[in-house]
């Protein structure tokens, strides 16, 4: 790792934050370091739709697989949902390359804290660290390279799943029930509004989220629907008291196929009940 003595800064007790240490020691490794001036928004592909929702005892986050560049599809199998640690995950929308780097930094940040302090951060603490990282990207955001995450986690103390939305300045907003981010989230959230109930079980909620992503793909050209011919399906990550797990492709494929089968009968998807109708 090094040919000579460990640098003094490494041996000095102080911060438990990897991002802070990186900023002090090797700022050239920070996401978006040394970017050229001007509007860079058209240079990099954009990730699109992420949705998340809570259920009793946990939280689920799901994302489509598409990244676009202008009117072109840049990636069909992009990964936009990442486990951040055992009990949390982050989905990203916006400038794809920068977002992936930001997630890597966030993952390292959580693991680093855990190893240095011998304990994990609280869910609120994790969400707050992510705020700081997003805020650190503000200069890039001003140049068009916006990264907006959606953070979910399980709070072991309260025994509930939580969702946090962000704005490009690092503003953090805890969400109730369900949320979404990215270009197709408008449509996805509309679908969730009609389909979501707080008492759904895990399997039903996975189906609801896939329905929401389908609706996003239906109306937003930048969001990819389930791709049957290439066997590419949304990524779904479930977090409960037992920890987090990304659902195997086969499991998501089965749900996606039944959603598509339903849409063949009714292209607009499930009908919500209407109270008060005669």
């Amino acid at each position, binding site marked *: *790792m090094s040919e000579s003595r460990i640098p003094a800064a490494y041996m000095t007790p102080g911060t438990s934050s990897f991002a802070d240490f990186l900023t002090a020691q090797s700022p050239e490794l920070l996401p978006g370091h040394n970017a050229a001036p001007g509007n860079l928004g058209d240079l990099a592909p954009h990730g699109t739709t992420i949705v998340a929702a809570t259920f009793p005892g946990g939280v689920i986050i799901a994302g489509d697989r598409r990244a676009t560049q202008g009117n072109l599809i840049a990636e069909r199998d992009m990964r936009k949902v990442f486990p951040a640690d055992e009990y949390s995950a982050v989905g990203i929308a916006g400038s794809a390359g920068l977002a992936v780097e930001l997630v890597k*930094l966030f993952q390292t940040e959580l693991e680093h804290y855990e190893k240095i302090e011998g304990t994990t951060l609280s869910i609120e603490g994790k969400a707050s660290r992510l705020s700081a990282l997003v805020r650190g990207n503000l200069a890039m955001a001003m140049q068009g390279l916006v990264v907006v995450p959606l953070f979910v986690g399980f709070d072991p103390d309260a025994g509930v799943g939580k969702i946090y939305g962000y704005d490009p300045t690092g503003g953090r907003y805890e969400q109730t029930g369900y949320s979404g981010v990215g270009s197709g989230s408008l449509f996805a959230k509309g679908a969730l509004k009609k389909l979501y109930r707080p008492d759904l079980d895990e399997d039903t909620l996975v189906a609801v989220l896939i329905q929401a992503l389908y609706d996003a793909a239906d109306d937003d050209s930048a969001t990819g629907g389930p791709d049957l011919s290439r066997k590419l399906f949304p990524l779904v990550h479930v977090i409960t008291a037992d920890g987090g797990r990304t659902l195997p492709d086969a499991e998501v494929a089965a749900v996606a196929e039944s959603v598509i089968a339903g849409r063949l009968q009714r292209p607009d998807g499930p009908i919500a009940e209407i109270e008060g109708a005669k």
Partner: protein
Amino acid sequence: MSTPFYVSPEQLMRDRADFARKGISRGRALVSLQYADGIVFASENPSAALHKVSEIYDRIAFAAVGRYNEFENLRIAGVRLADMRGYAYDRRDVTGRGLANAYAQTLGTIFSSGGEKPYEVELFVGEIGDTAADDQLYRLTYDGQVVDEHGFAAIGGAAEAVGGYLKERYTEGATLENAIKLAVAALGHTETEDREIEAKNLEVAVLDRTRTQPRKFRRIRPATLVEILGSSTAKPEVGAAAPAAVEPPAEKPAEKPAEEAPLAPPADDDGEPPIAPPLD
């Protein structure tokens, strides 16, 4: 002003080595042994908060004895080095050998520099591979020497007695349960007696190849230790030849650390953190 007098370099180094060795020998021993699915680290440690064994990276662990503030600095430096490298390159590019080298250079420089007191620490850097043959166990001494250990090793106070006990009884490819039993029995062994160490006074952690997560480090909880040790009164089957009688542990604590008394106190008792975890 006193007249400066000549001290030969040999004498100077010997004094520094004596100083470091004395500091280290005042603490308890720590053992590390390879078993079928990885490496187990065990030491007697009444504190549940101040660890001697810690995770550095996916497949790398750190274990140390001696002066707590010194090895804690080394541990934090190791975590920072590993995370920095894993972040800048890839997780697979973080290696135990690289870390052991960095520690060796650091300890060696401090030991031979006139301006700093030598570190009173001894440590292990363990790394597991895909098979037992790929596992690495490095032992580093206070002066920066690196020893590539195979199978088992002990550091700290009474390391020789403990290491001798292990040498007679260690077998390759043991199960985790047997490895922990042997390690704990070895920790309780001295020339004069075989103590039983209570589970709550033990710190045991493993690098476990069978974990599905990329991070292979795992602490063994006291409750699990009680299960493992409780069944056979803490005597490993592999050590059936052990001549010492099994004595009830309750009578033992009274005659504990006579070994610590005669040693001179360390030169820097002026408000420095004590060697932690504290000795009883």
